[in-house]
């Protein structure tokens, strides 16, 4: 553990941008955990008298068209957005990498079938596929997660497949066979941990992408249900108010969204360095 912390400090000190991203990440996680306690107002309490107030001391991010406090909504939305991104990425990560590993390891028909399935998904215009899935299944948080997971799946499958097939004849795999490991065990205990570093980069990129995707769905009107606060919806709602001068409604959730995605995207390299044993000493 101490070694890990030291390693962590090293990775951070080596790259200031990564350090910043990690700092931001922890801040986001904290906000997600304690959001409701931090929010100064009830995020869904409307107040017609307070509608569309510009940012002020009382409402630093202003209020929306129903008089809800934007700061509170932006804070509270963190949990939902992070949740969607994490769940979607976790789902596609596990399913995708399991498929990809199997395809890369056994090759042959497994590979061909997995390859065709991922090709088929990839050949879809991904965002439209997500729209279709949500439209077909109904717009609930779970369905947004499924849709996002489905369109992310091929990326994991591909990375996992290529990383596995590079290693499937590696000495340590042969050695594991000699040690009496079955194929499945080799996949689970030897190959999978070793393909984690390149997958980690994918994970962090996809986290950001998942949030953007959910936001895009909201923009089309297929997002999370109101009155739940979600950055994408808030931007989409706020978007219609930009022209009339109520810029804060779109700007602040947009900034929060951007900051989170930005942070996830930057996290990738750092994460890889953290989990890569070659870099550890």
């Amino acid at each position, binding site marked *: 553990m101490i070694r890990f912390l030291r390693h962590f400090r090293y990775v951070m000190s080596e790259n200031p941008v990564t350090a910043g991203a990690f700092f931001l990440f922890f801040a986001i996680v904290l906000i997600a955990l304690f959001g409701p306690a931090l929010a100064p107002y009830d995020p*869904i*309490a*409307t107040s*017609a008298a307070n*509608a569309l107030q510009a940012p002020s001391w009382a409402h630093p991010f202003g209020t929306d*068209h*129903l*008089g809800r406090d934007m700061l509170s909504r932006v804070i509270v939305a963190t949990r939902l957005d992070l949740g969607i991104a994490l769940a979607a990425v976790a789902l596609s990560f596990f399913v995708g990498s399991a498929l990809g590993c199997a395809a890369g390891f056994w090759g042959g028909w497994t590979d061909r079938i997995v390859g065709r399935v991922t090709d088929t998904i990839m050949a879809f215009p991904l965002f439209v596929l997500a729209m279709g899935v949500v*439209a077909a299944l109904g*717009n609930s948080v779970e369905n947004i997660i499924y849709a996002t997971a489905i369109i992310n799946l091929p990326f994991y499958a591909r990375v996992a497949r290529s990383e596995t097939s590079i290693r499937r004849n590696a000495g340590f795999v042969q050695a594991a066979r000699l040690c009496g490991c079955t194929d499945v065990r080799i996949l689970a205990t030897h190959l999978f941990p070793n393909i984690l570093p390149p997958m980690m980069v994918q994970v962090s990129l996809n986290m950001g992408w998942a949030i953007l995707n959910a936001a895009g769905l909201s923009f089309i*009107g*297929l997002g999370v*249900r*109101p*009155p739940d606060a979600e950055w994408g919806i808030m931007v989409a709602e706020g*978007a*219609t*108010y*930009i*022209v*009339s001068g109520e810029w804060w409604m779109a700007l602040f959730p947009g900034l929060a969204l951007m900051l989170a995605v930005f942070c996830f995207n930057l996290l990738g390299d750092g994460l890889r360095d953290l989990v890569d044993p070659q870099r550890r000493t």
Partner: protein
Amino acid sequence: AAGSDTLVVVTGDGINSLDLHRAGTNRPSYQITVNVYDRLVRFGVKTLEDGSLSYDSTKIVPEVAESWTYSSDRKSITFKLSPKARFWDGSPVTAEDVKWSFDRAVSLGGFAGVQMKAGSMTSPEQFVVVDAQTFRIDLPAPSKLTLPDLAVPVPFIINAKVARKHATKEDPWATEYLHKTPAGSGPFKIARWEPGQQFVYERNDAWALGPKPALRRVIVREVPSAATRRALIERGDADLYMDVPAKDSKELMEGGKVKVSGAPIDNCLHVLGLSVTHKPFDDPRVRQAVAYALPYKDILSAAAYGRGKPMFGAGAKTPATTEWPQAFPYDTDLVKARALLAEAGLAGGFETTLSFNLGLADWQEPTALLIQEALGKIGIKVTLDKIPGANWRTAALVEKRLPMHLENFGGWLNYPDYYFFWAYKHGHLFNSSNYKNEEMEKLVDETLHMEVSDPKYAPNIKRMIAIAFADVPRIPLYQPYLDAALAKNVGGYASWYHRQLDCSTITKA
């Protein structure tokens, strides 16, 4: 933007056909019929108190028909066609054309058939060519609705000679041809149509059934984003923008860069529907409780931005006039609401789902949110459900399976009984609450075709309204406005019950 005889219009939804009778033609496409074709008669135009123009539901004026006469039993109407009415190819509009067009309207089915039926016109036998210039409609029973129903966009007159040329065995009504190529006599022609982008009207200089339109070209451009539409009109890149969201129209009005012209839409209400077949809304007390709990004022200010006529807070429990729509005797009163709920045995509240149409989210979403919050105060826990436009019609109107929902029906024909016919009669499309009341059924059937002058008319209408007050399957929120934003130099805009643009009266300085 452009020269003084060219008008640039921006709109959110594009047209998908130039033929209203065709199955699948969307609502924005009705404006093609309005501008490109003529009808036998049309509604007149009146000036409202604020100076803006509106159609006049009480005045029916000649268009292709120069004059008309009722038979003594009032079961047939005979129209004398104007010799000035000429199709674009120069041929005169004959009774033959009118009959072919009306036959088509009742034969193709779908929306056109339904609308014709409202005027008691259901089969081709009813349409009789007396001579080239004389046309007669026979009715099964006298109806006050027939003549107004001839003024709506549906019974438009097609150049039958041209259309027949393009009819085939499979397609006897030339739907394929007319879908893309109008053949009419109206004040405008379609110069080009790029689906999903724009279409352009061009003036028919030979039109002689009214004052010659001031505009030579009207370019209607599709702009999906409301914010962009607003920006365009504010920046002066567009001349006219119809169906402005309430907030924008309020602000545009205050901004002063453009004119906003609007009027409450006749016979139209934004309502909260409570399905009487879903527990606990089968209990009228629960419905009344909801009606007492709604935050009417907040909805009016935060969802309608003041662009709505209040429909709450009437003093008496029974209507004093036959005016429709009129204020209901409910107001925000949580004490009464709780009492009523307790009376219904639901003091602890209950859970339900409030559905709304994604396509109308601009007013429905804030309204839904306000309702959700307000009902929470009397213990009703509401989950919101956005339903995509394509699904809305099925869920709300066809299957009528939404326990609580936002709805906005407006009757084209401005009679209260016409509204009740569609929205309160059991099994009818807009009766999304599945409301059923024997007395109401009888009253509507009796009154629907009755002349307004009939002595029984007023009492019947009042009774209907009184039932609606008491039973509240539909809780009116407000009567919406139809607002249009106009560049300062644009005049002559009139708002219409069909909510489409009529270009013929518009002028540009």
